[in-house]
């Protein structure tokens, strides 16, 4: 039990919180048809994170969030410039900008010497869940002990804060976001600002990317952003149920993925754990396959089949 508290509780919690925060936010991306934005931002924030880390020399969240936001906004502006000047479709313009930013981030890690401290390429690729240990835990009593809780890894606390922020935002803008997602033209005509909304989504996604960076890294955060929302989308057409299902999927992905990677091998008597961040993506993949199969049988799939039946031309027309 103490071993679980010391070694596994904080990473498991961080993984779950990261998946929940990203997964709920992912609904906005998916419903406003901007899944690519998650892909682009998660790559583009890397130089900002590294620069923030370089300047402050610590894992303090604020400088990294500031750097990441600057990088995200800068990348978005650049994407627009490249689109108009080079006459590229949005996907290609994103590809140009985010691979450039990502490469810059990787080189910055080497140049800044960040790798010597705490931030290395491995962390970018798979996160660093195993670094989130809680050595102050001595037993279940530590969960109520303020002294021990003060030692709880700060990354997990930041993630909890980000999740609260996202939940608050969703609650506050529930109706507006729904309108923007399902009827953007009407939303614009009644004066609801889609530009402000896209900026808000941009900022929130970059915050979530930074928060989830330590948990899953820069690439697997895309799975956390897109997979829960996609799983829910395959199963339902209802707005509220979409959020509930994606929350459940994110929970299963985070906690289940960590369990399958770190705890299951131990239960099976293997001495080698698997990569937890990767396992979370794999769990999401399994859930996605399940949702695909289930979605075809469920009400959503039936409605689709009904639409797909070809209309037969009346015989009298001959």
């Amino acid at each position, binding site marked *: 039990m103490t071993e679980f508290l010391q070694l596994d509780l904080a990473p498991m919690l961080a993984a779950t919180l990261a998946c929940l925060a990203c997964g709920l936010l992912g609904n906005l991306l*998916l419903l406003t*048809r*901007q*899944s*690519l934005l*998650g*892909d682009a931002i998660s790559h583009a924030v890397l130089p900002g994170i590294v620069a923030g880390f370089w300047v402050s020399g610590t894992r303090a969240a604020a400088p990294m969030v500031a750097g990441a936001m600057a990088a995200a906004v800068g990348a978005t502006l650049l994407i627009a*410039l*490249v689109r108009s*000047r*080079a*006459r*590229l*479709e949005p*996907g*290609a*313009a*994103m*590809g*140009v900008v985010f*691979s*450039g930013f*990502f*490469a*810059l981030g*990787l*080189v910055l890690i*080497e140049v800044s010497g960040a790798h010597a401290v705490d931030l290395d*390429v491995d962390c970018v*690729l*798979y996160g660093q869940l195993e670094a989130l240990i809680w050595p102050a835990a001595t037993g279940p009593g530590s969960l109520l002990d303020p002294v021990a809780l003060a030692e709880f890894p700060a990354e997990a606390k930041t993630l909890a804060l980000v999740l609260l922020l996202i939940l608050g935002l969703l609650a506050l803008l529930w109706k507006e976001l729904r309108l923007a997602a399902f009827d953007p033209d009407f939303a614009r005509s009644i004066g609801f600002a889609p530009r402000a909304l896209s900026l808000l989504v941009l900022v929130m996604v970059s915050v979530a990317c930074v928060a989830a960076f330590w948990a899953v890294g820069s*690439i*697997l*955060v*895309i*799975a956390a*952003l*897109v*997979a829960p*929302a*996609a799983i829910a*989308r*395959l199963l339902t057409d209802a707005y509220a149920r979409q959020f509930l299902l994606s929350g459940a999927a994110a929970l299963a992905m985070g906690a289940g993925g960590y369990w399958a*990677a770190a705890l299951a091998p131990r239960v099976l008597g293997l001495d*080698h*754990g*698997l*990569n937890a*961040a*990767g*396992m979370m*993506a*794999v769990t999401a*993949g399994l859930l*996605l396959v399940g949702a*695909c199969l289930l*979605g075809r049988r469920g009400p*959503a*799939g039936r409605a*689709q089949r009904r639409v797909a039946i070809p209309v037969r031309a009346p015989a009298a027309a001959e």
Partner: protein
Amino acid sequence: MSAALLDALLLAGGYNAIVVALGCAAFGLAAGSLGCFVLLRGRALVADAAAHATLPGVALAFILTALLGGDVRSLPLLLTGGAASASLGVLAVGALTRGGRLRDDAAMALVLSISFGLGVVLLSVVQSLPVGGQAGLKGFILGQAAGMSAFDAQLIGALALLAVLLLAALFRPLAVLCFDREFAAAVGLPVRLLDLALMGLMLAVTVAGLRAVGLVLVVGLMVIPAATARLATERLAVMVLLAGLLGAFAAWLGAGLSATLPGLPTGATIVLVACALFVLTLVFAPRRGVLAFAWRQAQLSLVTARDHALRTAFEARESEAPGQLAAWAELGRGAGWSAWQRALLPWWVRQAGLATTEAAGGVALTPAGLALARDLTRRHRLWEHYLQSAGGLPPGTAHHAADEVEHTLPPEVAREAEAWLRRHDPDRLGPVDGLPPPGETGMKRP
């Protein structure tokens, strides 16, 4: 360090280094030229998803080879595994979008991240295998040109050159496909087969780049040189050639840099070199560059300000006693000059021989200036009348609208507008080639 870099770049670093540099450059050539078609066909992100989807195949090939007791460093085996799983990834994108509930952007993000996750899990299995060579696998993620064997470089170069040859053979039909798929189908080209060929070439170039550039950034070397070339030229053949050369240069320089500065990930260095070339082109490209654009804008605003001042001078001559000349300051006010235009324009107009400054500070138009001013005034009034007659604008609005269009619309359009007026509203114009009356009759100019 600089001597070592020079050696690496000038192909003087021994047989192995030369072969590696040439292999990387060949890959850059293939990636850059193929990238043009990938870009124009809108397949950039599929290429990215496919590249990430190579990781589980590479890792699985490593595990199987290790279990069967083969050579785990064998590049052909690893690349075959990568190509197989990348193909599955491309099929998965199609399968996910088939239901119509997920758009292709979501499907690509899902395939990219989940297959990368699977690869990462398999890599952690690889770590626990009791064989050596695991460290080399990480090179497939971010690229590692250092330590590449001559055989590997030759394999990469051969794959890349094969792709370039195929591309050259299919150039015509692929060009038609990229510009207009419907047209290509209508003239009887096998569009599905061509799309499949493009996808196959893309997969081949992707796996060829895994060892040098790495799967995370391989798409960068397809997209960035192609986008750079697109900024510089309008012609596809030139664009493909240019992108290929840019890609080759970036790969050669980047690989050389990372070989001499250990720790620098090769893929990131190559992509940054390509990016630097892109940024330079974005700023300095002769026609589409940011500077050229700003220069054209400044030129247009200067010419506009000059034309308005000349018109003001001309109209002052029409209304007032010919002996009374307006000063530059008055002309500038009438034409709405900004501060820098006030400083620059009097000099420029005099220099161009359009006007002279008289003793009392008045501005006198030279014969050339007068002719130009008359033409400008005529053009402006023509547009005023046209906008009032054909567009139904009130006089004041028409005056401002004419100010907007007269500098940007080409002369042919102005001639058409005049012809329209001659047909429909000839009273407004007066005699042919004569000067129409001011368009805002009964209105005072603001």
